[in-house]
């Protein structure tokens, strides 16, 4: 027994070291981020003050919290994430329920369509979507909610892109609910919608939770959609585009430590969500559950 144990223990240590080495960029990256937010200047991973001496610990990078700009961007980001989440959950649940529980013409086709859309790279459609949004910009009332350069437009586009995953996910969760409760409700005379709203929807709470968390995180981190469809500048930014414009400025000196602080500012809610919901997220990231939790 003793001889067998030793090689296995040695193997495990080797494996651990190999994994650690492979993970170095990730570790270094996050270390840099956290250290830099609290230092005046960072040389590599070393916090220093302006003259290059070790130390330079400061909270001045976080002063941006006291200015308005970042809060405008944060507000937009919050709106985007919230509306997107509510929208995705609502639309996906309705569609998922119908696909899971109702017999109708075209059910097979719609299901296949959902799968095809799930695999289709919607990012290739950005140019055409620009034209769709511009079309709405021409319509008097709608243009405030759906037009180009509105948060509403960005919400709708982001929402639509999440649908294939969301519908598939919710359908899977509905598939996992037993038929009996529903059968009873329908026999008692409930309409489909009441059955859905009062009985089925509450039963898929884990699915709703998982989808909500995932959608919120996606919305909060959004970059390319707001970048393309919002023109930037105060009031038309989300945190990602705000940070990006600071990173690529030609005329204003780039302060890497300030960038790190803003970056961490955006990252913190994500990390909080992540650490409390790892199980859900792992499942969603693998492409949707195969029915049930």
């Amino acid at each position, binding site marked *: 027994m003793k001889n067998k144990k030793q090689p296995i223990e040695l193997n495990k240590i080797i494996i651990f070291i190999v994994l650690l080495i492979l993970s170095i960029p990730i570790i270094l990256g996050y270390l840099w981020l956290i250290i830099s937010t609290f230092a005046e200047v960072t040389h590599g991973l070393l916090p220093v003050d302006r003259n290059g001496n070790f130390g330079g610990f400061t909270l001045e990078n976080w002063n941006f919290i006291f200015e308005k700009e970042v809060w405008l961007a944060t507000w937009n980001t919050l709106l985007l994430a919230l509306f997107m989440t509510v929208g995705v959950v609502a639309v996906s649940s309705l569609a998922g329920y119908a696909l899971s529980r109702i017999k109708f013409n075209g059910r097979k086709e719609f299901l296949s369509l959902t799968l095809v859309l799930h695999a289709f790279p919607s990012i290739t459609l950005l140019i055409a979507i620009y034209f769709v949004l511009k079309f709405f*910009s*021409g319509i008097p009332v709608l*243009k405030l909610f759906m037009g180009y350069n509105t948060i509403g437009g960005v919400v709708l586009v982001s929402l639509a892109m999440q649908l294939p995953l969301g519908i598939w996910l919710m359908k899977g969760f509905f598939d996992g609910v037993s038929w009996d409760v529903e059968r009873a409700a329908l026999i008692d005379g409930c309409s489909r919608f009441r059955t859905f709203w009062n009985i089925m929807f509450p039963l898929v709470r884990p699915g709703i939770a998982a989808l909500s968390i995932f959608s919120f995180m996606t919305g909060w981190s959004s970059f390319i959609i707001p970048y393309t469809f919002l023109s930037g500048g105060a009031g038309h930014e989300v945190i990602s585009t705000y940070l990006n414009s600071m990173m690529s400025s*030609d*005329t204003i*000196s*780039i302060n*890497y430590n300030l960038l790190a602080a803003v970056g961490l500012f955006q990252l913190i809610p994500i990390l909080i969500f992540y650490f409390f919901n790892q199980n859900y997220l792992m499942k969603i990231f693998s492409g949707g559950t195969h029915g049930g939790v």
Partner: protein
Amino acid sequence: MKELGWSAEEIDSLPQRIAEGSYTLDDMLETCERAVDAGVVEEGHGYWHRPLKGGDFIQFYVAFGGQIYDEEQDKLVIDEDALIKCYQFQRDCVESGATPESYIGTQWNIWHNEVANGGALFFNAGTWMWADWAANYVDGGEDTLFENLGFAYEPSGIRGQKGTTLSHPLVYLVASESASGSEDQALAERLIAKMQTTERNTRHAVESGHLGVLESQDNYAPYKESEFLSAASYLLDNNFFQPNHPMYGLWFDSFWENLVSVEQGDKTAEKGASDCIKVLKLELEDQLIVK
């Protein structure tokens, strides 16, 4: 430059000689070579042009006699000869040791730090950087800058051709009602007019190191009092602009990509120029005149 053996006279007269065209880009590279050989300047620190993509680079094309825009026909122009010479100059910078081969992509922070503190013998910068350097990069502010740095036109590539500089004025446009859906055009115009005063423009100019845009600023006291701005204003006598042609972006993109390839040694100047012209012909079609 003093260390290199230039007398104070020669240094002071340099801007003048550049303006006249008696000190050319090739002369500049020669000076760099001598400086590096003499150990006065580190290798690769002879000439630091702009490290990232930007309109400044067309100055070299114009310096070799290149034309960009034909006003009469409202078309863009590409001059093959000037283009080849321009690209070759970029490559020469590297080959003569004045500029490192992997120079393009240097970060702004590092670039500013080096140049503002005299780390490069010659450099290509914008007036707006002066204010930035005085505030953020150099101990002693403007005084140190005046002591150590000088400025002049961009030297020409052709002996006898005057030095020149690129200006980049921006224009405010008010979108029409049909374009923007807004009916506040008059309000926007009034707002712009209110902002375009001598006082406000001067304040912007002095604080940020940009040259003034209104002629009235020339006679305005705070503007005149700014030592740097008054000294630099003469540069506006021989400047040019990037053309206001809708396809200019395509012209520049192709120009730039091949410039980088040539400077980094991936293509010869001739190949870079011919590739550039091929793409321009394809993308600009009838909006291009090839010389």
